[in-house]
């Protein structure tokens, strides 16, 4: 029921979504809007979980333009 909250072991394999710490306002807009509940904010660090299906809603949604695809 937790949408694939990353465990210590799988944080590193997290995927191709990138958050710019320089742009992020830590507002939680992406967290509350993610259809997969795959984004978590822990102490001002944004993490993507396994449940992310690359729908990319968060990329358009982020008011600060802080989320992008890697690569």
């Amino acid at each position, binding site marked *: *029921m*937790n*949408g694939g909250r990353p465990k210590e072991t799988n944080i590193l394999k997290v995927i191709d979504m990138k958050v710019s710490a320089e*742009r992020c*306002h*830590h*507002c*939680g*807009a992406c*967290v*509350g*809007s993610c*259809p997969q*509940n795959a984004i978590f*904010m*822990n102490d001002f660090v944004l993490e993507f979980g396994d449940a992310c299906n690359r729908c990319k*809603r968060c*990329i*358009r*949604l*982020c*008011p*600060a*333009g*802080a*989320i*992008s695809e890697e690569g």
Partner: protein
Amino acid sequence: MRTLNCDVVVVGAGPAGSMTAKWAALGGADVIMIEKRPEIGSPIRCGEGISRSWLERVGVEVDPKWLARSVKGAKIVSPSGEHYVTLDESKAGNEVGFVVDRVFFDKALARDAAEAGAKIMLKTAATSLIMEDGKIVGVNAVSHGEPLEIRAGCVVGADGFESQVGRWAGIDTSLKTTDIITCYQYRLTNIDYDPDFTEFRLGSVAPGGYAWIFPKDENTANVGLGVSLTKLKKPGEVKEYLDRWIASDSRFKNAQPLEAVAGAVSVCPPLDSVTMDNLLLVGDAARMIDPITGGGIANGCYAGMYAGKVLAKAVKSNDFSQQVLQEYEDDWRDKLENTLWRDWMAKEKLISLPDETLDKLTEAVSKVTLERITVGTLLAAVRETYPELVKEFEDLI
């Protein structure tokens, strides 16, 4: 691991959480309210404009500590800027608005909860629900970096727009693309404007949403806008909309920012259910934001009060089953549900209108005599002038 026991654990110390904690504690419940941030009320994620009338009804006393400004009226401006609906004090009686300081407002509500007997823990984030034999019996948390178990008869999800508690419990709080507004706001100072009126600007300045000016003092205001996610094409575009508006409006010619605020609001219909055995949701976490105004504080405070009162009863019978919590479900629906539906339907309609139509609509409504400016009186005025726009939900007006 450290374990705490209580009757009610409230996750999130915003207005809805504090109201729940206060009213539950007043009724004799042993309440712990946890807040993941190190300070209640900060950072701000809000335009800070509220109406005045509901405060008394939820037992909140006006306090100069959190009242930034009392405005004399509101002005709704058409896309072209040529037409506007305005309402001032002389006509509005006591129905004019407040602009608050959330940093102090949220603390005042938390103080009320504390005075009622609730315990508050900062820097304490819920991480999951504790389940035993399929029953919710509390939350796991991390408090100042240390794991903590808080066992409670009822878990209250007051964890805001990004709510996790509801999702952990299996309550579907997911939002459609059409039901999300993305916002950006500056607190701008050195502006040359009328500090006695809140301003709402419609149309392509903020597609699918609106732009606002909420006065903080003689030359400082919260200036922001919200755009429907459906209208956003590229990353960070909402900030570009705001920067463009500010650059084009001479009132902001010499403006400088004191604060930048980002965020999103839900503009969805009411959820089917926000209660289950041993758990309930309040406020933004329960998707109770008004879909037309984007305001969430009043609805969150009403819901918190209703929830707290029902929880106080539940404590006495030590029964936090859904059946008992249904009274809260009935109370908040009785107060808010029709309005949320009406405003969601109105939002769905308004979002489809081009600037020219919004201009005509504003012009028509400006000629109707209004006693108050509320979403209800405005929609009634629309019904008078453009009945076809609201015919699908006229029974709710």
